[in-house]
């Protein structure tokens, strides 16, 4: 079980800010692939992965990173602070 958070337009497209996801996905890429098969809203949110960033337990990470031991996965667009 992993807590998945969404921000900005990913949150809007998926329709929830966070959810518990029961998954056996080995990596972030596998988790995205799994979510995309669930419902069209995930397919829409993850259609262009070049516009998606990921943080694992609140640290910026990569799609290829294993999810073992990770409690919190966050998906969001490139950041626009400052």
């Amino acid at each position, binding site marked *: 079980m992993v807590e998945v958070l969404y921000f900005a337009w990913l949150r809007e497209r998926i329709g929830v800010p966070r959810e518990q996801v029961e998954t056996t996905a080995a990596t972030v890429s596998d988790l995205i692939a799994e979510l995309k098969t669930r419902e069209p809203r995930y397919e829409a949110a993850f259609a262009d992965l070049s516009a998606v960033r990921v943080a694992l337990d609140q640290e910026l990470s990569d799609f290829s990173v294993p999810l073992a031991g990770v409690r919190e996965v966050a998906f969001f667009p490139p*950041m626009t602070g*400052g």
Partner: protein
Amino acid sequence: MRIAVQDAAFDPSAELAGFGQGRADVGAVVSFTGLVRDDTGQMQALEIEHYPGMTERAIGAIVEEACTRWTLADALVIHRYGRLEIGAPIMMVATAARHRQAAFEAAEFLMDYLKSRAPFWKKEITATGAAWVEAKESDETALTRW
């Protein structure tokens, strides 16, 4: 060092009062304040979303990195979230150092990293709708100079 991530408005001049002053090892204070700008003439407000928890950690890591690269006597980062009016301060950074070069460079470093490594997302609100601000390629390339 002080980091504040807040909904509330702030007064940059009040925040700077006394910053870096009253000590023998500080000869330079640099500050930058970012204001809500309206490029289209259509904007009503700016909404900023952030990732509570990660935001503070990310800014903390950026300030820590600045402190390893430059000898800073003090550093200040304030960043707002929520709904902001046009012309209002969004964020500010301030640095205090022995000489101005370190203070200027560290302030620019903090700004460059805050723009694309701290989890904030801006949304422009207009009379007809709202649009997420897209990250600029130039913000990413700005990091390569460090």
